[in-house]
């Protein structure tokens, strides 16, 4: 396998970044995940570390937004998914779909 390993949680975070499209930063990602996953406990630190790791692997890029009057004037770091990120997600989905299709007795779903 040529590309880096992507953990489950990382995959979820990457997907959320793709979903949020331009407004993805720590709090929104955590909130989105929480909402979509039936209030599963999502820690900010976990989200951030996943984000930084994804960035190190080249699946997302980030930039600092401007200062606003919110949150004590502290800036936000916005994340965007890269082409590599999109392709990786697509490949993973492909693999899963193929696996789903290969299940002989689909009735258990």
């Amino acid at each position, binding site marked *: 396998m040529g590309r880096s390993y992507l953990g489950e949680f990382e995959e979820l975070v990457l997907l959320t970044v793709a979903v949020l499209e331009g407004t993805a930063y720590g*709090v929104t990602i955590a909130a989105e995940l929480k909402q979509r996953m039936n209030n599963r406990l999502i*820690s*900010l630190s976990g989200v951030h570390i996943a984000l930084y790791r994804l960035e190190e692997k080249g699946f997302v890029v980030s930039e600092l937004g401007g200062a606003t009057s919110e*949150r004590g004037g*502290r*800036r936000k770091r916005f994340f965007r998914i890269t082409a590599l990120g999109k392709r990786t997600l697509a490949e993973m989905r492909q693999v899963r779909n193929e696996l789903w299709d290969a299940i002989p007795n689909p009735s258990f779903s």
Partner: protein
Amino acid sequence: MEKQPTPPRWADRFLGWFLPSELYEELLGDLHEQFGFQAEELGVQQAHWMYFFEVIRFCRPYFLKRRFRTDTKYSTSYTYSPAMIRNYFKIAFRNLLKHKSYSVVNIMGLAIGLAAAILMLLYVKDDLSYDKFHSQSPHIYRIVSDWYHPDGSLGHRDGLSSNLQGPLFKEKIPEIKEFVRYSSGFRDIRAKGDVKSFEMIYTDSNFFSVFDFPLLMGNPKTALTKPNSVVISEEMALTFFNSTEVVGKTLEISSNNQFSPYQITGVAKKSPQNSSIKFDFLLPKFVNPEETVGSEWWLNFSFHTFVLLTPNANVENVVRKMKQINETDAAQANKILVDKYEIKDKVVFNLQPLQDIHLSTDLPAQYGLVDANNPTYGYILSAIALFILLIACINFVNLTVARSLKRAKEIGVRKVVGSSRKQLVGQFLGESFLLSLIAFVFAILLVQLILPTFNLFANKSLSISYLFDAQILLGYALIFILTSFLAGLYPAIVLSGYSPVKALYKQMAFSGKNYLQKLLIVVQFGLASLLILVTLSFYAQFNFLISKDLGYDDSHTIVVEKWDLTKRTAEVLKEELLKNPNILQVAPKNGEHWEDVGKINGNQKIQFGLGIIDEEFLPLYKIPLVEGRNFSKDFPADSAQSVIVNQTFVKAANWTHPLGQVISYPFNDGRKLKIVGVIKDYHYQALNNKIKPQLFVMQSTGFGSLNVKIKPNTEIKALAYIEKTFKKLFPINAFAYKFKDLENQKQYESEEKWKKILLLGAFLTIFISCIGLFGLATLSTEQRTKEVGIRKVLGASAASITALLSQDFIKVVALSFMVSFPIAYYSVSEWLQNYPYRIEIGVIDFVLTALITIMVALATVSFQTIKASLMNPVKSLKSE
């Protein structure tokens, strides 16, 4: 507006400490945002808890790891970014170049201060390194003796011992591994038809196994075992043989008035610079077998005895055993001391570590040990060096703070753009480090330059790489860092504290009177005037010492030494010498510093200096008699029963009618002698010593020297004649002579050197203080350009403006005297207590010090103030 709930501050602070700084802002922002939501959703209390757990969950190794990684993606850490550091350097150098005079003043001052500190370090290090090069040095001790009065108080201490303590103590005390006796004496060497005197060391054959003096040639184990063998130094080998491969060759050395061949058994490397033992010739020591512990030889203290203890020996134990052995084994000898010499003081043997000898004042390195140094000199030198360094640092602080007004804009801009205070402190401290570093380089060059002169003054042979080890390197680093901090910390804190609004909106000015600057100038000039006063007093005392009337005439007198001059040969020599018209008078005398104890007034004891002279001595030196008469040939009984004493003797004896009083002393076998004359006191010793009772006798079998009075300006002719005559009569003796007046001046050599060092120190302190003042004056007049312009327009004269600008500084300098003069008075009078004959500290010295200091300060300041006052007001007012 409703107050927003905020998360706990301590948690944020904890995160700030824990999280990588480049992530802190965004993470904290996210946390706070989430806290806001949760506070709305679940209530503040709940949100606090959630926040707390969130913070706990942030404690992950990932963040810690990231904190210490430098190549992170979004490093916003300006402090360490290469661009910023480049900028710091650029700004620092631009500032240096833009304000050249300021930079030169600062760097020069610091360089001089650092150079002084380096010199001090070298000096002190050298002093402390003495005798430590021997591998067994920590275990080598010298046997010394403490003499206790009958009442139990300590009388005096003696660094010497006899031939017998070493062997006896070694035999009885297992902790003593070895002993080495050591003494020195002058012997003559005949080579190529020429006879010369050299100091030679007599020592035991195990000398080389206790001390580390490597031999270039020869076997150290056997070099000193046979009689008539000699170990010579490299230098002497080259002098006599032009080669160091001389083992087996012979030297003709005198013994008992005849020369005999001594075989060279070893050539030693030059003795290290920092050694109390320095030798050119080592001769094996042999002890007369009649010297036994029970005899009075036990008390013939003429030698150094070094002992080597076992590494784990307890010194106190050894000393206790020594005391015991002295009381039992040497009881008989100690009884002789009481019975025959009537010395009631009790001797207790003690041990002095070899490493302590160099700086010891009560048991100094003398009698063959060399380079004794008084630790006071080290203290004085350290104090001067620290003064100079301190003053240089004060300059730096004063100038940097004063000049910072000009950099207020830079600081303001930096702060607005987002520099933290920490970064600014770092920047300014860095600048001070940079300046110190440049200064340090100059300082090392400076030290290199002045070391030869300094060595001459301080009687050392130091070099910058000498004793170069981790310790001294650490010392240098410490001096450097200390200076940088001392000079840079305060300005850095002040400068970084400027409010950007103030700095950018309006011209910054120091509010208040700037007391710190004034205080620092007071300290500077206080130190400078203190040193000036000390130097002036030192000069006065020195001049007093060398110009004080000694009470006798030492001009045109040559002293020829011959320790075994008999009465008869003295007569012959005298007769021969007087044949020359250039020689006016000849008078023999015994050697110097003979002391004895006699009995007067029945049983009263009196200690006195003993002079053995003939009837010519007092007239030759023009020593006046106050009562009675001189010895005379007309009274044949003089040589058997007459003595002459000095006034101090009479006073000590409490006599109103000294003539005819009777004295006896053991050296004279207790015969009674009658006083026939009293001379006026004269300074027969250096003026550091009080005049003590003196007694002159005529009867003697021998003398130690010959005093020859010659006609003025015939020194060369007379000397040549004396030498010729001397050689004719005593062909095997070396001709050693000295001029009495030069010899007298030489006694103050150390004072002379310290006079120069003090002068240099005083000069440097005032110089550095002044360059600092110069810098300050420059800045303050620059700031007042407008004011000066307006004053001139309104009709002020140049003179009044100069006075106005100068008076601020002069007032402060004058204030410094109030601090320094009491201290100076106290310290100088304390120091003068060392001299029994001394000057009074005069008001004139204080006035002179004040005048010098003020004049120098005024001259420094006026350079700038006059320039300012002569400036065209049109120019100064137009410039914006």
